[in-house]
C-alpha cells in the first residue's frame, strides 16, 4: 500500500536509484539544500586561505578559530531570533559591553562569587529585552530606532559603570577566564561525544521512522539512517581527532554548540518556535491564528539581549578584561552579518540556529585567515570584503535557483 503522503499522481518517484537521483537533482535545482551551499562557501574560502597560508588549516589555528567564534557567535544566536520575527537589534554590542562591565565590577571589585555576578549580568541583559518588548508593543517605535537608542544609552551606562576605573582585569586564574581560555575537552571524552551524537541521531531517526510507518506515512529507510549516522560519526570523529592533535575542543565551544542545539530544538520542535516563524512570515496571520504576538516579540528580544549579555561576559572572560571598548568595534555588525550570511532573512520568517554558527565560522575563518598574512591594513580590508562576497556568493547562487523556481 502506498504511504498516505505519496499517493498524489503528480509526485515524481523518489525511490529506487533513478528516482533518488532525480529527486536530488530536483532539490539542487530548486535550491532546497538548506545549509549545504553555505558550507560549500565556507569550504571554498578555506581552500583559498589554505593556499595563501599553509598554517590556516593547522590544528592549532583551528583550535583558536573555534574558540574565537564563541562570544560573537552566541550573540548571533540571539540575533537570529529577532531577525526571525522580522525585527532587528543594533544594541547587542552595547549590551554585551555593559554586561561584561557589570560582571567584572561585581566579581572583581565587589568580590561576589563568579556565578552570582554572571547571573545578575544575565538578568540585566534579560531586563533590557523585556524593556524593548514593552516599548515596541506599546508605542510601536520601529525596533531599529529603539535599539539605536539602546546602543547609545547602554554604552553610556557601560561607561558609567566602569566609572573612574575604566578597565578591569579579570584574574587569569579565575574559573571564568580559565573556562574561556584553557579548558579543553579531554580527547577520550570528545570521542564519546561524537559517538553520542551519531547514536542519538540514529535513535531519533529510527523511532521517528517506526512511528511514521505505523501511521502509514512514508519514512526513511534503515539504510539511509545508518549511513547518515556513520557519515556524521566519521566527520565529527575526524574533526575531533585533528583538533585533538593539539589542544582539542574548547569547553566554551561545546557550550556554543549546546546553545545552538537548544535553540534549534526550541525553534523547530516547540509551539513557541512555530509561532516565531509565523510572526516573522505574516504577523497578521499569526495574530488571527490566536498567537500572542506581543509575547512572541518580547520573547525574541529577551532571548537576544540575554544572549548578548552572555556573549559579552564570555568575551570579557576570553580577553581577561572588561573595559570601555568591550562590545564596541564591529560586534554589532559581525553578529548580524553572521546570522545573515548563514541564510537568515532580514525580512523575517526564514533562518535557523545553525545559520548563526555557520555564518560566524565564515566570518571568523576570513578574519583568521587574513590575520595570518602580513598585509597592510588597506589590503586587509579590501581582501576581507572580496572573500566575504565569494563565500556568500555560493549560497546566493543556490538560492537564486530557488527564486527562479517560484519559491520566494
Amino acid at each position, binding site marked *: 500500500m502506498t504511504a498516505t503522503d505519496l499517493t498524489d499522481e503528480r509526485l515524481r518517484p523518489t525511490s529506487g536509484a533513478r528516482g533518488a537521483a532525480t529527486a536530488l537533482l530536483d532539490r539542487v535545482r530548486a535550491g532546497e539544500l538548506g545549509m549545504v551551499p553555505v558550507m560549500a562557501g565556507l569550504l571554498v574560502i578555506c581552500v583559498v586561505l589554505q593556499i595563501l597560508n599553509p*598554517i590556516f588549516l*593547522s590544528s*592549532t*589555528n583551528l583550535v*583558536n578559530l573555534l*574558540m*574565537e567564534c564563541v*562570544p560573537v557567535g552566541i550573540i548571533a544566536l540571539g540575533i537570529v531570533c529577532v531577525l526571525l520575527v522580522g525585527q532587528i537589534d543594533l544594541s547587542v554590542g552595547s549590551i554585551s559591553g555593559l554586561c561584561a562591565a557589570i560582571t567584572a565590577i561585581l566579581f*572583581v*571589585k565587589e*568580590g561576589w562569587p563568579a556565578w552570582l555576578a554572571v547571573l545578575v549580568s544575565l538578568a540585566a541583559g534579560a531586563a533590557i529585552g523585556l524593556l524593548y518588548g514593552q516599548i515596541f508593543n506599546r508605542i510601536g517605535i520601529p525596533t531599529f530606532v529603539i535599539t539605536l537608542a539602546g546602543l547609545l544609552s547602554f554604552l553610556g551606562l557601560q*561607561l558609567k559603570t566602569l566609572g*573612574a*576605573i*575604566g*578597565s*578591569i*582585569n579579570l*584574574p*587569569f586564574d579565575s574559573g571564568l577566564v580559565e573556562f*574561556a*581560555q*584553557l579548558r579543553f575537552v579531554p580527547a577520550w571524552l570528545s570521542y564519546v561525544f561524537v559517538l553520542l551524537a551519531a547514536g542519538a541521531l540514529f535513535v531519533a531517526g529510527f523511532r521517528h521512522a517506526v512511528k511514521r510507518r505505523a501511521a502509514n506515512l512514508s519514512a526513511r529507510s534503515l539504510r539511509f539512517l545508518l549511513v547518515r549516522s556513520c557519515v556524521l560519526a566519521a566527520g565529527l570523529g575526524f574533526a575531533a581527532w585533528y583538533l585533538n592533535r593539539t*589542544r582539542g575542543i574548547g569547553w566554551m565551544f561545546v557550550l556554543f554548540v549546546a546553545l545552538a542545539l537548544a535553540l534549534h530544538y526550541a525553534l523547530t520542535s516547540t509551539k513557541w518556535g512555530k509561532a516565531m516563524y509565523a510572526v516573522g512570515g505574516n504577523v497578521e496571520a499569526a495574530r488571527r491564528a490566536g498567537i500572542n504576538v506581543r509575547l512572541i516579540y518580547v520573547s525574541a528580544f529577551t532571548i537576544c539581549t540575554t544572549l548578548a549579555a552572555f556573549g559579552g561576559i564570555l*568575551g570579557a572572560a*576570553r*580577553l*581577561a*578584561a572588561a*573595559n*570601555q*571598548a*568591550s562590545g*564596541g*568595534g*564591529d560586534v554589532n555588525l559581525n553578529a548580524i552579518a553572521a546570522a545573515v550570511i548563514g541564510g537568515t532573512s532580514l525580512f523575517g520568517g526564514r533562518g535557523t540556529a545553525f545559520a548563526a554558527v555557520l555564518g560566524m565560522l565564515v566570518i571568523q575563518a576570513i*578574519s*583568521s585567515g587574513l*590575520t*595570518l598574512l*602580513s598585509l597592510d*591594513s*588597506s589590503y586587509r580590508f579590501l581582501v576581507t570584503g572580496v572573500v566575504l562576497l565569494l563565500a556568500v556568493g555560493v549560497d546566493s547562487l543556490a538560492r537564486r535557483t530557488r527564486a527562479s523556481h517560484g519559491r520566494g
Partner: protein
Amino acid sequence: GSGAGASGGGSDAKIAFLMPDIASTRYELFDAPLFTAKMKELCSGCEVLYQNAAADPAKQQQQANSMLAQGVKAIVIDPVDSAAAASIVQAAQGQGVPVIAYDRPIPDKKADYYVSFDNEKIGKLIAQSLVDQLKATKATGGILQVNGSPTDAAAGLIKKGIHSAVDPSGLKLLAEFDTPGWAPPKAQEWVSGQITRFPNQIAGVVAANDGTGGATIAAFKAAGAKLPPVTGNDAELAALQRVISGDQYNTISKPIKIVADAAATIAHEFAKGNKPAGKTTLFDTPSELFTPTVVTRDNIAKVLREPGFAVKISDVCTAEYKAACTQLGLNS
C-alpha cells in the same frame, strides 16, 4: 553672536575643553576632571565646557562651532584629526577666540599655543625600553608590533615612533598589525594567529596602548604559550596592575596632571586677554612639551608615589595584587 571675543576680565569666562575619543580611558577619567579642577582653582567663576568627539572629526567640528556660539573665551582641543582641526582653528581665530592645541598638534594651521608630550616620542620610548630589555636578556627571536587604529592619526604617530626604535635595533620585526578601532579582541585574535605562525620565535611585543597590550597578554595566556615582554601606553589602572604582577613589561605614564594644569593656566591667561609666551616653538606655535615616563616593575613604586599621580596606590593594590605589591614595597 553672543559677543564672542569681546573683552572680559576672565573671571566668569567659559572655556571649551574638547577631547577626541573615549576609546582610551584617560580623557574622560583624567584630562577632563584635572583640567576642570585646575580651572576652578584659578578662577572660581569660570566654566569649563567639556566635550568628547568619540573619534569623529566632523563631530568635533560641530562641537567647536557650538562652543563658539556659546561665546567661549578660549578653546583647548585635542584634535581627533590634526589636519581636520585646521578648520576649527580657522573658525575660532576668525571670531577672535584663541585655540590651544592639547596632546596632539595642529601642524597645518598655527594654533595659539601647544601643550603636550608628543605621541611619536611615546612610541619611541616604549619600543626602546622593550628593545633594551630584550638585548639585556639576550632574547632570541623577533618582535611583533600591535599598532593602533588605521584610521586614527595619533596612532599613526605612535606607530612611526615605534618603528624609529625597532627598525634600527637589529631585532627582526616578525609582523605588524593596525588594530581596527583599537579594539582589544581584534588585537587578541591577531596575536593568537601570530603565535601559531611563529611558534617560539616571538621575543617581545610592542603594543601601542594598554588595551591592545592587555589583549596581547591574554592571547599568550590563552595559547598556553610563554609570555614574552609586552609594552603598553597610558598607565591605566589595569595596566599598572599587570606591570606589578609581571604580566606586562612596561607602560607609559603621561604626566597628565602637569599637562592639564599647564593647559588650564595658559587658557586662563588667554581668557584674560593675555598672550602667554611659549617655552619652545613647535610647528611655528609657542609650545610647552612634557616628557612622559616609561613605567616598568623597576620604577613603578616610585611613579605611583609621585605627588599628583592620577591613580591611587590603594586602587592598584587590591586583594588580587596584594602579594606582588608587597614584594615591590607598595604597602598602602
